[in-house]
């Protein structure tokens, strides 16, 4: 019998039914790929490695999935977050952007631009370095903030659409979005002062 609902998939996973796993896979694998690409960066090979590690770890522990602790999607994203972090730690080439070496806080061009204090975005906004710093800032946010920001600003879902999926109201989503944006700005401000100085846009 096909499994349609999240509850049915969860029950099937707990029972060890492989069709439940396949249903989960078919529902979330492509979405997970995009999510990992955004939060982890890297080339397609890196993304594939993290996605695979995430799904294998999920497959190995799926029978223990507890629906009371969150949705299947947030469960997968949690695993992906850990796997992406593990991958980053293993990739020494990324050490140049080690956030631990950038703990000095201060106003940044991003924070200023995001807050509307300057009109022109920092010149390196589209660079790989920028994307990496944004990823690192996102990675330090609570997971629900991270997912919310990505859903709104990368997937282009409206607050109402997000609310419908989460079983809440548009107003609640907008409020939470505001807090999430603020948190992201704060993280960016801590992570990127040296790059701001290079660009000469530090306020």
């Amino acid at each position: 019998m096909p499994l349609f609902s999240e509850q049915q998939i969860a029950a099937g996973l707990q029972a060890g039914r492989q069709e439940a796993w396949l249903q989960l896979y078919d529902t979330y694998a492509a979405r997970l790929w995009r999510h990992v690409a955004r939060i982890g960066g890297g080339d397609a090979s890196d993304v594939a490695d993290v996605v695979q590690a995430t799904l294998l770890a999920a497959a190995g522990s799926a029978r223990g999935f507890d629906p009371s602790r969150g949705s299947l999607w947030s469960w997968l994203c949690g695993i992906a977050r850990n796997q992406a972090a593990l991958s980053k730690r293993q990739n020494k080439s990324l050490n140049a952007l080690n956030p631990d070496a950038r703990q000095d806080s201060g106003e940044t061009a991003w924070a200023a631009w995001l807050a509307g204090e300057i009109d022109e975005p920092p010149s390196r906004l589209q660079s790989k370095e920028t994307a990496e710093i944004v990823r690192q800032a996102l990675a330090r946010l609570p997971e629900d903030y991270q997912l919310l920001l990505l859903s709104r600003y990368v997937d282009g879902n409206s607050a109402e659409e997000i609310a419908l999926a989460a079983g809440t109201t548009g107003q609640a989503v907008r409020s939470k979005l505001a807090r999430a944006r603020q948190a992201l700005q704060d993280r960016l401000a801590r992570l990127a002062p040296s790059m701001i100085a290079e660009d000469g846009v530090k306020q």
Partner: protein
Amino acid sequence: MKRDDVSNVHDDASVENRFTQLLGSLEPHSAEPSENALHNMRELTRAAFVTAAAAKNPRSSLFTYRKLRSVAMVATAAMVLISAGAILFLARSKPAYGMADLPRLMATAKTLHTQSLVFSYAPDEQFTPFDKATVLPSESWIDLPNDRQHGKSFMSWRSGDGARHVDSVESVSIGELKMDINHTKKTVSFHKNTLLDQRLAARQLLHQYLRSIAADEAAGYTKVGQEQIDGKLYNIWQRTHEGTNRRPGKDGKEGEIFHYTMRVKCWLSPDSGDIGRVEQWVKDSATDTWRPETFQIKVERDVPIPAESFVQKAPDGYEQVNTPQKPYVHPVSTRWASFIGDVSIRAYVGFTLEDGSVIIGWAAEPKWPEQAEVNKLPDDQREKRRLEHIGEVARQQEPLFANLKVGGDLPNLPAVLSGLKSYTQPFASGPEVTYSGNHLATTRYEGRFIEWSLYVPERAPSSLSRWIYLTQWRSAGQAEARDFNSIYADPITGQEDFDTLVRGSVAERSDGGQVPPQVTYEAVKRLAEEMRARHNRSK
């Protein structure tokens, strides 16, 4: 606008736009998933899910084979499964079971239950480039005291058009009666073997298991960590060794030599000596990637056997080829058989003695062109014709057996099982060892001449290459060659083993049940020493 005010501008279009631009920087080319990669992962993760589910539920049915199109993914899968558990490096001060204890623990086992995943690669030739693997789950119960076995596995075969097929098969043996089930073809057949052959088959399963984990090379293992499986603590032992082998060539010729690296990981409980898991990996030198060979995900010694494990009842809806009351009767087993030109050569049974020498009973005779026609005859006529044919061949061969000497040359049959080669792939390290053969004894079974030869290794073989050999043969007008189908020779320990198994098997393959007087434990040991000394002198 102050940053403190930002929470009040969530509906500000420019802020929304700025965040969209910023987070849009995360959208790399890799964001769009690769359909091929996702397809591979779907199959891979399904296998991983089933494996994990089976590990938690040992009674789950495992018997669906799955194709994994990327071996690298398979390797990663298993690595991730391994690392999924917390590996702790802890020092233990109290005495604990180690790998050196394993042969003793296994040798004293009365029952053994295993569940395995066998990774089969296509094409079949070892270590050729591969792009997909087939995972073949299998399960086995061995009940030595009660002469019972139950196995579920897969049988790979090729049809006339060269296509590869995999059938799901199962067998249940109780005493002399064995029930074979082909779940793919939905057929059931019953077979009767001798009790001794059934016992030897059970021992073979146990020994092959020990060999598969290289348990007799305990010194090569190092402890690399600890892990909990289902709440039980296991030490992880690992052994890695280099080896070489030769690929099968075309037209019976020897192929090129290649090198490989083998790794065995064994999860062993320091408290009970129980095995939690065993994994075998091989590193392909061409691609420098590790690929899984076999994972044993359940290994249980002396556990209660579920009652339904040994029921010889045909599943509903299956075609029953014969009945338990009228089984196919197999008077004696054949361990290895091949055609060499127009000659049929077969090895009935083999034994490896403690000094490494090997006894094999074998026979060679011309092909029987009429056999296909004879097989169409009614049972009584077929049996009569078969015995007549054996008699004719025996009369032709009688002169060749007339003047054989113990320790002398082998009978000059149309094809001769002249020697053995150590079976170095995939487990053993070290170079190949050749075993030279000499005559030990002759028996006649159903009138047919059976040659019992003793093969002595040119030097001490690796313990890992024991028990399984490649056969080397010669025939008229052809150079020495070998067959790449291996033969198992049961390890014999002590006189009691020798008397029960070796002399028992010789007696079963002797029309009068008589065992030639030179086939005794002490006499064979002496002969092996003489042969070894002779070989050393001739070097």
